């Protein structure tokens, strides 16, 4: 019997992911034990696992480990995204604990699936090989498909799950076909070997078609125009806490893989993909912002606004270089806090009056927020700050994120793109500030949202709030972190 040589298992390179996966399985097992009525302790267990992963990522900062024949790489870049994803997952778990109980949809599987989705996201961040990119995207997406359909008896939720699944699988097929063609062109799926092949023959037809298909797949996952059709329906139908995860974590992770793939594997093709992304960025910003104006449903509005934010982040990718790339990382960090906070307020606002839906959604119509400033000042104050950060008002995180992104674009010579981005930010102010106007300057008519008190939710909002203020007041250390993180990519 001749033994088959197995590749050495580099536990180190997977440490945060393994902790999360282990916690997810523990959550599933703990779900079998009493107390079976309440699931709060499972949320706490999931949170403990996420914090452990976060601590590991912070402790390992500055190290660089490769494993599994360079398929997985836990360098500063991956660790930065691990931290971002851990924050996103932690905020989502905190927001979910009371939200799910009120909706009567508490389950241990929910927390386990959130953790598995976070595993997939972290795997994407440390992918050094297209196969791992695919694996990470599938692990993340499959969990999110199920989570989107969590409210089983609610039609919109099932519809969101089905739409997300069908379109997501379609996009995965594009991605996989792209990987296959790229493998045909380069003879390997490893980023570095793809880079070598691309440098030898940059305009190989097979390579270019493969890259185009891959960009379609990625475009779907980050929901950039014209691959954004799923976003509004899924954001609206999915439970609000799940929407927060889709909007923050999955976007950050897909960007993580996209940036690493483009800047390491496809650096020889930079002029080509830059031209392509220029168009995607301009389209995403414009379509996202213009369509968001017409929305009265807050979740749909935030979906279109997230499409616009993807456009801003693509501006950084077009600008390229250490400045543009690190600006995206900083922006994503700020975006995670801001968006999680905004959706957090939505989970805490409940619809009153009319027929109460046991598993329906909270208040999502902008009119229901009329007079919130008087009924629950703290919540209205927090939502105002989150929305101002999304607009990009100076002392908050969103401003510096945009400042660095657009600054990098101008410095790289993409003045027109920066102009489009700034004009779009001005358009965006309209629909974000409209919510603020409703909260402070309109009298409630008919059904109005009320506050559902929740300690965990309040804690999540507090963390997100501190996050956006901290990133806005002293951005320098975080920008430095982002610059250190992108250094290994741009060697």
């Amino acid at each position, binding site marked *: *019997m001749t033994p088959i040589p197995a590749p050495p298992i580099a536990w180190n390179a997977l440490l945060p992911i393994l902790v999360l996966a282990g916690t997810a399985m523990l959550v*599933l*097992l703990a779900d*079998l034990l009493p107390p079976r009525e309440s699931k709060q302790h499972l949320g706490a267990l999931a949170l403990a696992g996420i914090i452990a992963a976060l601590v590991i990522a912070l402790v390992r900062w500055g190290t660089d480990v490769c494993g599994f024949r360079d398929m997985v790489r836990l360098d500063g870049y991956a660790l930065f995204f691990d931290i971002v994803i851990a924050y996103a997952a932690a905020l989502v778990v905190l927001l979910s604990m009371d939200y799910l109980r009120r909706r009567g949809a508490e389950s241990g599987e929910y927390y386990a699936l959130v953790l598995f989705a976070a595993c997939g996201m972290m795997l994407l961040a440390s992918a050094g090989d297209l196969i791992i990119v695919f694996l990470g995207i599938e692990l993340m997406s499959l969990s999110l498909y199920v989570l989107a359909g969590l409210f089983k008896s609610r039609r919109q939720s099932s519809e969101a799950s089905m739409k997300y699944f069908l379109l997501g699988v379609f996009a995965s097929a594009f991605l996989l076909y792209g990987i296959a063609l790229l493998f045909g062109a380069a003879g390997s799926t490893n980023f570095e070997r793809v880079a070598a092949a691309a440098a030898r023959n940059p305009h190989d037809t097979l390579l270019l078609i493969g890259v185009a298909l891959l960009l379609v797949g990625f475009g779907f996952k980050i929901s950039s125009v014209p691959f954004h059709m799923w976003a509004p329906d899924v954001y609206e139908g999915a439970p609000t806490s799940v929407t927060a995860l889709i909007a923050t974590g999955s976007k950050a992770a897909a960007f993580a893989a996209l940036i690493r793939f483009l800047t390491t594997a496809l650096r020889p093709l930079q002029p080509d993909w830059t031209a392509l992304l220029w168009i995607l960025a301009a389209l995403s910003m414009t379509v996202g912002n213009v369509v968001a104006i017409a929305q009265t449903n807050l979740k749909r509005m935030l979906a279109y606004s997230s499409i616009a934010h993807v456009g801003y982040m693509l501006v950084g990718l077009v600008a390229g270089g250490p400045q543009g790339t690190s600006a995206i990382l900083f922006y994503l960090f700020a975006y995670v806090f801001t968006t999680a906070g905004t959706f957090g307020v939505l989970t805490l606002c409940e619809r009153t009056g009319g027929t109460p839906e046991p598993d329906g959604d909270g208040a999502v119509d902008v009119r229901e927020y009329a007079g919130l400033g008087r009924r629950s000042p703290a919540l209205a104050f927090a939502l105002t700050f989150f929305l101002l950060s999304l607009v990009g008002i100076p002392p908050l995180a969103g401003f510096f994120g945009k400042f660095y992104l657009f600054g990098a674009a101008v410095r790289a010579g993409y003045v027109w793109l920066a102009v489009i981005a700034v004009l779009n930010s001005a358009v965006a102010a309209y629909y974000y500030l409209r919510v603020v106007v409703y909260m402070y300057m309109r009298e409630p008519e008919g059904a109005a949202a009320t506050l559902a008190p929740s300690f965990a939710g309040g804690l999540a909002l507090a963390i997100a709030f501190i996050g956006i203020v901290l990133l806005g007041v002293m951005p320098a250390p975080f920008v430095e972190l982002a610059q250190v993180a992108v250094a290994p990519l741009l060697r």
Partner: protein
Amino acid sequence: MSFLFAGVVAAALLGIPHLLAPRRLTPVKMEPFECGKDPIEIAEGRFPMKFSTVGILFILFDIEMIFIWPWAVMYLQLGWFGFLEMLVFLAVLMLGFLYIVRKGGLEWE
């Protein structure tokens, strides 16, 4: 070049009939089978979702055999290490079984 040619041919095959062919839809033509008999129900039939759960569980425990069979064949060569490894594997599998039972996966009604 051949890609282009294939694309043109495929587009032509789909497009030309679309433009030229007359289209008169009658109720009979719209039926799934034009055999003169009215369909009674959906061709695939309907069955309860419960079967799908049971089907998945069956596959899970069926796949287990793929691992146990070669182990049983090589039992003597693998020795104590193989025996303990298989015990660990079966323990994990039993945990999954426990999970199914506690979650009511095997309750029919």
